[in-house]
């Protein structure tokens, strides 16, 4: 905690959890999908579902998907801006109680028809937790530089990736592995203290059985 957690963040209102946090979930979905999607479906759970209109949670998520930050004053016009930017959207309210109260599940389809799923929860004060990427359950907050590395679960992948980071002087704050089953689809989530340059991201993508590496910049 530092002084700017208390006097801050600078954000567009009205609610740090229902608005600022929602923008952030949208932003992360955009990065994971590899840029602006052409069509998105957003399922809202819990109090997101109940109060999204009054809190502008819908506008906030769309703004994030359009690449806006939580303090962008265009957030309140984002639904119209999405139309201009050629992104269609649909909101659905879910009554499923199983997930955290402030949760959005975003399915984004890009120009080539490829679908990406990101589910995130807003946990208070604008902080979020991403808990699902496509079919894999994950857990990260996005307050560090975060590398998402989908790969096939094989021996040596983690060692190869961490060695690359070490060689470039990048310190790992946290590393987690999630997999659907042994030898199946897996996701490495690495949080680092330093920024990861694009060239290092490409080197990671060249590691055998790594499918892709996505870098998410920290929140504020």
């Amino acid at each position, binding site marked *: 905690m530092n002084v700017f957690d208390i*006097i801050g963040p*600078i*954000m*567009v209102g*009205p609610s740090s959890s229902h*608005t600022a946090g929602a923008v952030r979930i949208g932003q992360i979905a955009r990065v994971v999908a590899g840029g602006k999607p052409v069509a998105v479906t957003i399922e809202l759970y819990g109090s997101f579902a109940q109060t999204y209109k*009054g809190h502008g949670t819908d506008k906030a998520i769309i703004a994030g998907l359009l690449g806006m930050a939580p303090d962008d*004053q265009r*957030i309140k016009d984002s639904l119209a801006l999405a139309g201009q930017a050629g992104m269609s959207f649909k909101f659905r309210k879910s009554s499923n109680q199983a997930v955290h109260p402030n949760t959005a599940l975003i399915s984004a389809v890009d120009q080539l028809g490829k679908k990406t799923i990101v589910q995130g929860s807003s946990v208070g004060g604008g902080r979020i937790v991403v808990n699902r990427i496509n079919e894999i359950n994950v857990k990260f907050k996005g307050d560090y530089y975060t590398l998402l590395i989908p790969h096939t679960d094989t021996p040596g992948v983690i060692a190869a990736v961490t060695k690359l980071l070490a060689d470039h002087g990048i310190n790992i704050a946290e590393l987690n592995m999630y997999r659907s089953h042994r030898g199946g689809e897996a996701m490495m989530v690495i949080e680092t203290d330093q920024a990861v340059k694009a060239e290092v991201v490409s080197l990671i993508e060249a590691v055998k059985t790594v499918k892709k590496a996505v870098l998410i910049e920290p929140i504020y």
Partner: protein
Amino acid sequence: MITYDSIQELADRARKKGKRISELVLEDQALHMEQSKDELVELMRKSLHVMAAAAKSGLTSRSLSASGLSGGDANKMKQVVDGGRSLSGKVLSETLAKALAIAEVNACMGRIVAAPTAGSCGIIPALLLTLKEEHHLTEDQVVMSLFTAAGLGMVIAKKASISGAEGGCQAECGSAAAMAAAAAVELMGGSPQMSAHACAFALKSVLGLVCDPVAGLVEVPCIKRNASGAANALVAAEMALAGIESTIPVDEVIGAMKAIGDAMPKALKETAEGGLADTPTAKKIAREILR
């Protein structure tokens, strides 16, 4: 390094070193965040500018929030102030107008600084910006006082809570008022110990205040609680500057706030199931808005 476990400790340390609380907090945070003091001051200045812009736009705006529940009240208040018709004098009425203004900007999806939260964002800037105008203080002085507000806020966040969902509105509007009061005391030349007393006064006045937003939206009663929170801060600062002392030490008041927050039922902690949110009118509003 400061541990932010005790406001008394912070005040004692400042007194011993002959410094203001803001100076101690700034030095500590520069070390902690590995940035220069100047960089942190500039970051804080940016926040102050956003606060001032929000106050300015909120005072003139008559637009309504998406729910239609709020908007335009700051403008009404401002007209009374400018027309010289205020009951309570310039400093208080101007503070009330700004607090309503910033909270309305927040409700209308405008840009604000969470201080400490979005729901309570009007309290600290309303009082500090008004004191700046009415007492001809410099921008640098006000920027520094925000470090005092933040330092005390860190102790409250650590030892109790600054979230309505966790501790009720005492933790949001109460904390904001306490932080504003302490900062105002420092701005007006009071001692660190006086800041600590001001912080205690403001918290004591709202212990037990529940979080009961109508329809779950940060509008009713939140916006008007920003006005009363700013007034609470002014009252607390005024008493502390007069040399009045809190019988219960500030850290014990924070302990009490934590215990009360823990004892508060869930229905009174932001769930919109109790308090004002559970009144017939609120339920009707909720049905209409959430339809």
